[in-house]
């Protein structure tokens, strides 16, 4: 189904591309970038699968997709960081093999990275000319470079004082220096990787003005982002990536944020889940106006409030990167909130009364983390060792001060049978289990603690369909046994199949709540895109909170 969908879109797009070339004043401009069937694998992971992309000259082209969709891999291939396993690249209509960043630069491609590649204690001018001094004498070179920089600044409206030290500049201006670096090297194709992540809204506006200016000068811009708002605000065309594949190409003006959100998140076959109505009991978790400010001063969570009762599953929907991960980290005790508080039973946790994961575990909180490789298991450990990760009570789970391999193995083996973990070998390294079985190890460990509150992040990411069904059943069983479950997932279907209530997060806020029966994909998509919250006049039932 997904494949058919893609083909239609691609076909439509290439037709449009064709017509636009003919119509642009009789003069046919070749495509700035044309990618054909790009494939790239890292080990078993297929980061890019048969990716084809056409970027028109002088357009701003957006690539949108969730974290891990393969966007960064794709532009890294285009910029010569990686070489593709197969496929070809055409720049301005010419077949152009790109083997290194030097190849990319010499073909007029420049990239502005999410984290700037500037020498902080150099001046703007020194940064711009770095690597392109073109003369043995730095004095001579800087005279030439200064003139060139002045010209670029004037032409593109990119005013920066060339003698300022870069580390003293605000982030927005540093980014401007990055763009000037690309132009200075003769770049006519500019790749921006998540450029607004570090910017304030005002700086973002200024960046967009600059990009529009560049476009009018004929520069092609490729904008990588996971923010729908930016795609809608600035791009001419947009391509959507999901799971390493290109799933759609659209003209921005003919698409809508809701449609893009749906394409990004995907549409999966609804799994049959035996979901009986919940019988909520006492309130287990109360979150009151929780906020979290990151180290760079960006608000990651703003004013989050929610309640969670025993015996219900509350799903948190949202495009990834909108604060869900941070919420799980705070509620599991890994991160301390900046403001606000949350209560689990009688225990109150806030900035003044911080907690930690082992304390929370002791009062019945279990946590299936979003990233099992980074947090959930320790890859070189045996399954039996990963199976006791975080078990904090010395008298529990066979874990005393002395780790007896026999006891660990026996405990692990019994859980392996209960959760059908294959192969049932406690001594096998955790890294050698498949994704689904690794996830089952985490789930088995956490469920076996008989938690009062279970925090679950992306329970089925990278998990095969059989394991998905099994995991869903376990979660429902746990709910029926009276556990309160907070489920964070970017898979809408998962949220809709499992949750009794659905909260939607956008930009670190909870922007709406829906009952299970009221939720449909379209509404959720709108709320996830952050639209419902602002246009709530005709849909009063949405976005009631903000």
């Amino acid at each position, binding site marked *: 189904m997904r494949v058919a969908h893609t083909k239609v879109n691609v076909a439509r797009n290439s037709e449009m591309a064709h017509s636009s070339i003919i119509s642009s004043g009789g003069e046919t401009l070749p495509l700035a970038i044309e990618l054909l069937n790009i494939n790239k694998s890292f080990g078993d992971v297929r980061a890019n699968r048969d990716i084809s992309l056409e970027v028109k000259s002088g357009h701003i082209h957006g690539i949108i997709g969730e974290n891990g969709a393969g966007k960064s891999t794709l532009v890294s291939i285009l910029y010569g960081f990686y070489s593709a396993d197969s496929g070809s690249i055409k720049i301005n209509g010419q077949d152009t093999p790109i083997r290194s960043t030097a190849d990319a630069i010499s073909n007029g491609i420049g990239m502005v990275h999410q984290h700037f590649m500037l020498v902080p204690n150099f001046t703007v001018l020194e940064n711009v000319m770095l690597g392109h001094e073109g003369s043995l004498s730095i004095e001579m070179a800087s005279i030439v470079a200064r003139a060139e920089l002045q010209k670029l600044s004037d032409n593109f409206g990119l005013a920066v004082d060339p003698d300022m030290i870069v580390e003293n500049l605000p982030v927005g201006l540093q980014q401007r220096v990055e763009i000037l670096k690309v132009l200075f090297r003769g770049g006519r194709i500019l790749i921006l990787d998540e450029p607004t992540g570090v910017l304030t809204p005002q700086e973002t506006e200024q960046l967009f003005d600059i990009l529009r200016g560049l476009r009018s000068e004929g520069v092609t811009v490729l904008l990588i982002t996971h923010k729908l708002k930016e795609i809608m605000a600035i791009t001419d065309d947009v391509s959507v990536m999901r799971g390493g594949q290109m799933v759609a190409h659209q003209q921005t003006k003919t698409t809508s944020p809701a449609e893009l959100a749906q394409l990004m998140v995907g549409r999966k076959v609804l799994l049959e889940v035996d979901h009986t109505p919940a019988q909520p009991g006492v309130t287990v978790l109360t979150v009151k106006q929780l906020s979290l400010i990151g180290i760079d001063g960006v608000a990651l969570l703003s004013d989050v409030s929610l309640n969670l009762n025993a015996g219900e599953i509350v799903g948190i929907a949202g495009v990834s990167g909108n604060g869900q991960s941070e919420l799980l980290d705070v509620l599991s005790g890994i991160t301390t909130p900046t403001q606000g508080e949350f209560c689990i039973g009688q225990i109150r946790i806030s900035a003044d009364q911080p907690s*930690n994961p082992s304390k929370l575990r002791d009062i019945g909180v279990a*946590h299936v983390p979003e990233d099992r490789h980074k947090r959930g298991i*320790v890859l070189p450990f045996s399954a039996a060792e990963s199976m006791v990760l975080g078990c904090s009570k010395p008298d529990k789970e066979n874990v005393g*001060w002395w780790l007896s391999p026999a006891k660990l193995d026996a405990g692990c083996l019994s859980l392996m049978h209960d959760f059908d973990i294959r192969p049932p070998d406690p001594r096998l390294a955790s890294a050698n289990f498949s994704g689904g079985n690794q996830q089952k190890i985490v789930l088995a460990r956490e469920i076996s603690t008989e938690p009062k509150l279970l925090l679950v992040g992306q329970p089925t990411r990278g998990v095969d369909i059989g394991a998905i069904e099994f995991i869903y059943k376990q979660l429902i069983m746990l709910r029926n046994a009276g556990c309160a479950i907070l489920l964070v997932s970017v898979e809408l279907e998962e949220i809709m199949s499992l949750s009794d209530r659905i909260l939607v997060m956008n930009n670190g806020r909870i922007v709406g709540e829906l009952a299970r029966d009221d939720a449909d994909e379209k509404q959720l998509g709108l709320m996830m895109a952050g639209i419902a919250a602002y246009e709530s006049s005709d849909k009063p039932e949405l976005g009631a909170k903000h």
Partner: protein
Amino acid sequence: MSAPQDLPRWADIGLIPLLNVFAALLVSGIVVAIIGENPFDAMMVMLKGAFIYKGSLGYTLYYATNFIFTGLAVAVAFHALLFNIGGEGQAYLGGLGAGIVCLLFDSMLPALIMVPLAILASAGFGAIWGAIPGYLQAKRGSHIVITTIMFNFLAASIMVWLLAGSLKAPGQMSPETRSFTRSAELPFIHDIANSIGLEMARSPLNLSFVIALLACVGVWVLIWRSRLGYAIRTTGHSAGAAEYAGIPVSRVIIITMAISGGLAGMMAINEILGVQHRTILGFTSGYGFTGIAVALMGRNHPIGIVLASLLFGALYQGGAELDFEFSTINREMVLLIQGLIILFSGGLAYMFNRPLARLLGLWLNPGKNIPTTGAENG
């Protein structure tokens, strides 16, 4: 692409270190040939000097004792992904600890109490000298490599100051303490052997060697069988998982460094309680640094460390014999061979992995086509 090729476990643990040592010896042999000696003769002299001549095995094991302690120290820290470069200073301070308690109590306590007390003091002083950089890393973010190196210099200065000053034996010129009484001595192995009727040549080998082997067992239990070791390994392998599991990472770092420093400090019991019977200047003479190479070569496992320590012990002892036997080969030549072994088994430890993996792949499954050229071009 850059990930090390998968090797069968036995090849990784058994074959690779042998190949590395062999490569080092090969290059050493070439150097020996260049200066005009027969490399095979030199090799024989070294082997005999390390194992065959009367008392030589005792010397080899005596040197190995030092390497076991300092190697274990580096290995324990490494399991928490901490590079303890400060074994030298920690061992030095261990000598101070042992020296102080011996000077204070050796005339009043019997050996059965005095010796364990001195061992505890050496471990304790080393532990403190390791825990301070650990604290600085955990709480202040000062990099452990930098601080442990600096603490080596601090230790050296403190020892010079004390041994030339307040700890110096009265009425004496050399910077060392007075000799301890018999009750602060660890017995020599040859004395023990002779007392039960076994003939054994004199050597500095003493009971510390047995303590070192016990320390190996202790480290193995700590790292692979204890809850603390689990926390140490989790911290080392995956900071994210440690954070998730609620392991107090800062505390684990400090404790790990204390244990590491304590093990390094125990090197002093071999030198101070076992052989010198007084604290002297510079008794660590680089054993702390060589411990890094020993741990690297022994793959941070006690058994590997014992084997690597034997190798380095044999090099020290056999090297001395080389120096004695050949007029053209001197002490520096022996240092060169040691340096080559460290280079090949440390710096170039993974050099043979890829070729060996390919070779074994061809050999073990000849039918299967091993991809030798990656898909480099798009």
